[in-house]
């Protein structure tokens, strides 16, 4: 069996359960993003894959080989740290060639490979610069080149783009994805930015509280979130509380057409703002009062209060009927665009 | 690289050599000294192993008690003056341009190389009647006649402050260099003058450092041996002078050791007390 496999991996720090019973399968060549809020355990999990932390339970297999207790320096990985961890006492070439130096490569071999890698990250000629002279984006590239120098089996990145400014970040996301596809290397990125995950990943693993909530493709996660947390974490969504009255599924006392009655206590309906249609008052499935309107140019967000809950509808200027703050309005949506989720 | 507990003999190996060296060559000598302090002094010769408290009793007489009190007082004064002068100095130092800072730091490090003897000698010249700074003041019209400003308490204090000041500055340097300047700037935007900002922000924030430095200078000054002799009269001689005198010239090791032990205990007690008070205040 090929690829990376995590089986019931857990990590406890005393009474703190940082990672709890995580099982995951990553086929070779895929790009996985581990996504979640800070403290959800994603970095701890990555560090266990790297061997920088030892799991308190479970096993990690790479291409069928159990690497759970194999020390870091024998795991054939490449890793980019959040702080980039470039060696200040070596120049760019020295940094990139480090892994080769450890393996006893010759000067000629190192020079050649460093040249190739610098080309690959669009930094040809920067070999003799000192790390301190580089900009944030340039350091980023050197860190990537360094990690990939000896063609590792796994490419791990811990919040690699968090130090970059917004525009550079977006550009790097695309570059990173393109690089990965070109090299076909199994890549795992830890991030808290869901847009980043959606842009780059083949598979998104959403985590919270040390557990995996859902592991699926970006589209799947967006359209069919497994629970309320995932629905709310990815993109934005409206979580409408549901109940059953007289054998009919209702929200805010109004029946929801097309919704199967098999709802349990505490479940909610997740509807994305872009799937909510504003109707004249009294005509929609639900009705409420407009509390706030946010015009962002390409989209207009309408904030509607219903019985103390706030829902958001997002429309393009063309499709939006004229409703202003204080008006009563109706809301509708196609039931196919809504997902029932548990907390 | 995470700090993990050592798991194998190999992991513990690095600390073995330092541990052995420190135990054999510091703990044991120190222990030997404490043991000797309980020995009985033999007239004319060295001492016989015994366990008597004579030495400690003798120490608690008014004479030696007085010397102890003076030593503590002197050390406290030196600490206060050094920090009072050195703290603002270091504050100014860290705000200089890099080049100027390095120049000052090099000067301070070079002054460190002056031995206590030379410092004593230089100040004894500077404070003398014939060749000292009073001659300068006479020339400037500030004084009528040149006079000798030593031996005396002031001279000893000056010499000891001179000796401790570079250390004080170098000890204060790291924390002032890492000070969060935005705190000062925030105070300024809220209307505090530079002086006010200094006293309301910088000093309180550096409180722990100041206390630690005071303690350090205090202990450092407590050990001063040469300067009190060179710049002061016998009544300004500190405990360290007496200890050496007893150990070498009076051949009374047990008594010297007893005084030394006592000095350590007092110093530790004062340090502990200060730390405790500091912690109490911090919690309040």
């Amino acid at each position, binding site marked *: 069996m090929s690829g990376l496999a995590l089986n019931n991996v857990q990590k406890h720090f005393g009474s703190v359960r940082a990672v709890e019973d995580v099982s995951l399968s990553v086929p070779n060549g895929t790009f996985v993003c581990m996504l979640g809020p800070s403290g959800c355990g994603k970095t701890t999990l990555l560090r266990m894959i790297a061997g920088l932390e030892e799991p308190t339970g479970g096993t990690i297999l790479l291409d069928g080989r159990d690497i759970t207790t194999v020390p870091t320096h024998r795991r054939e990985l490449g*890793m980019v740290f959040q*702080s980039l961890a470039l060696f200040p006492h070596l120049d760019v070439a020295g940094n990139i060639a480090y892994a080769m130096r450890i393996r006893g490569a010759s000067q000629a071999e190192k020079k050649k490979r460093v040249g190739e890698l610098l080309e690959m990250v669009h930094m040809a000629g920067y070999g003799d610069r000192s790390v301190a002279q580089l900009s944030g984006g340039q350091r980023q590239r050197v860190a990537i080149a360094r990690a990939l120098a000896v063609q590792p089996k796994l490419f791990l990145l811990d919040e690699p783009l968090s130090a970059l400014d917004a525009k550079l970040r977006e550009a790097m996301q695309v570059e990173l994805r393109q690089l990965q596809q070109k090299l076909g290397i199994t890549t795992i990125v830890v991030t808290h930015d869901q847009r980043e995950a959606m842009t780059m990943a083949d598979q998104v693993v959403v985590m919270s509280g040390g557990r995996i909530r859902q592991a699926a493709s970006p589209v799947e996660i967006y359209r069919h979130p497994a629970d309320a947390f995932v629905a709310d974490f990815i993109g934005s969504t409206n979580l409408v509380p549901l109940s059953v009255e007289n054998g009919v599924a209702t929200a805010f006392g109004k029946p929801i057409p097309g919704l199967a009655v098999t709802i349990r206590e505490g479940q909610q309906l997740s509807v994305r703002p872009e799937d909510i249609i504003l109707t004249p008052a009294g005509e929609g499935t639900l009705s409420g009062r407009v509390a706030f309107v946010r015009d962002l140019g390409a989209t207009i967000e309408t904030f509607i209060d219903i019985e103390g809950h706030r829902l958001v509808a997002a429309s393009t200027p063309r499709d939006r009927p004229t409703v202003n703050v204080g008006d009563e309005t109706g809301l509708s949506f196609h039931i196919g665009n809504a997902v029932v989720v548990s907390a | 690289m995470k700090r993990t507990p050592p798991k194998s003999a190999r992991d513990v190996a690095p600390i073995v050599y330092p541990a052995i060296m420190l135990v054999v060559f510091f703990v044991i000598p120190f222990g030997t000294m404490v043991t000797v302090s309980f020995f009985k002094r033999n007239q004319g010769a060295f001492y016989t192993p015994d366990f008597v408290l004579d030495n400690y009793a003798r120490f608690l007489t008014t004479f030696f008690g007085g010397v102890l009190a003076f030593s503590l007082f002197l050390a406290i004064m030196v600490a206060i003056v050094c920090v009072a002068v050195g703290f603002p100095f270091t504050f100014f130092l860290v705000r200089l341009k890099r080049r100027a800072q390095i120049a000052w730091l090099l000067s301070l490090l070079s002054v460190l190389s002056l031995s206590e003897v030379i410092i004593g000698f230089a100040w004894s010249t500077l404070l003398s009647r014939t060749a000292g700074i009073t001659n300068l003041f006479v020339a400037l019209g500030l004084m009528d006649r040149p006079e000798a400003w030593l031996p005396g308490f002031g001279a000893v204090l000056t010499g000891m402050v001179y000796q401790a000041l570079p250390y004080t500055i170098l000890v204060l340097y790291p924390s002032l260099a890492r000070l969060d300047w935005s705190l000062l700037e925030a105070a300024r935007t809220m209307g505090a003058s530079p002086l006010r900002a200094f006293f309301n922000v910088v000093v309180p924030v550096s409180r722990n450092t100041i206390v630690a430095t005071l303690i350090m200078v205090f202990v450092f000054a407590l050990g001063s041996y040469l300067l009190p002799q060179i710049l002061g009269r016998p009544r300004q001689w500190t405990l360290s002078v007496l200890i050496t005198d007893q150990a070498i010239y009076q051949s009374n090791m047990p008594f010297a050791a007893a005084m030394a032990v006592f000095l350590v205990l007092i110093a530790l007690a004062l340090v502990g007390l200060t730390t405790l008070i500091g912690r109490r205040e911090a919690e309040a």
Partner: protein
Amino acid sequence: MSGRLLRFVWMLAVGIFLAAPLTVVAGVSVNEQQTLAFPPQGLSMAWYAAIFTDDEWRAALFASLILATLAAALAVSIALPLAWFLWRRQAKWARIFQLLGVAPFILPPVITALGFLSFWATLGVYGARWTAVISHGIFFTTLPLVTLSLGFSSIDRSLPEAAATMGASEGAVFRTVILPLIRPYIVSGYAFAFVLSLNEYIVAYMTVGFTMETLPIKIFNALRYGYTPTMASVSVLFVVIAAVVFGLVARFGDLPKLLGALTRE
């Protein structure tokens, strides 16, 4: 701006205060007669030559230099593994050794000197020259320990981790990453211990004062029994040595950082 004026005045005052004794010493060192006169009456560089031509002074100079060289090396040899261990491993019991490493220096020197005296006397080797090396080495362990602890704490822990991910074993990590980064602190720790050992009086006096004259011992004796400007010229020489040594450290390294400031960004 009164702030700037205050700064200027304060620093100038301290500067004059610090420089005054140096001026005296320098002035005395060039005095023509063999008296300690200040201001100097007649100028002569003879006393600088005397350091090397006078047998006793030369012997004392070499004794001090050798003692300092060896003692500082010993101090660093103890401090480095200790500081490394404290940084690398989590072990509460190790704190006691940290305390022991710092203790000799923060206790009044006479205590440490006395301790060594009774120790060497009990062992029956009192006065042997090598006892001074060990005494000074232990006494000055604190300085390299402090600079090395500072140095280790400034190492970004993700650096050795990154090295490990690239295939470096513990030994290789120490050799290729830790050591290069800690080297400046080793040097500055050694420099501190060296300079202070050169000028240390009481421990040297109490342990080998009767068998060997180091420069501080000789200077003190000179002060008491026979004035000679050579003691002043020696002191000036030492200040110059210290300035050169630390100047080199500053030239090749980041002096503010070595003394505890953060790296300029």
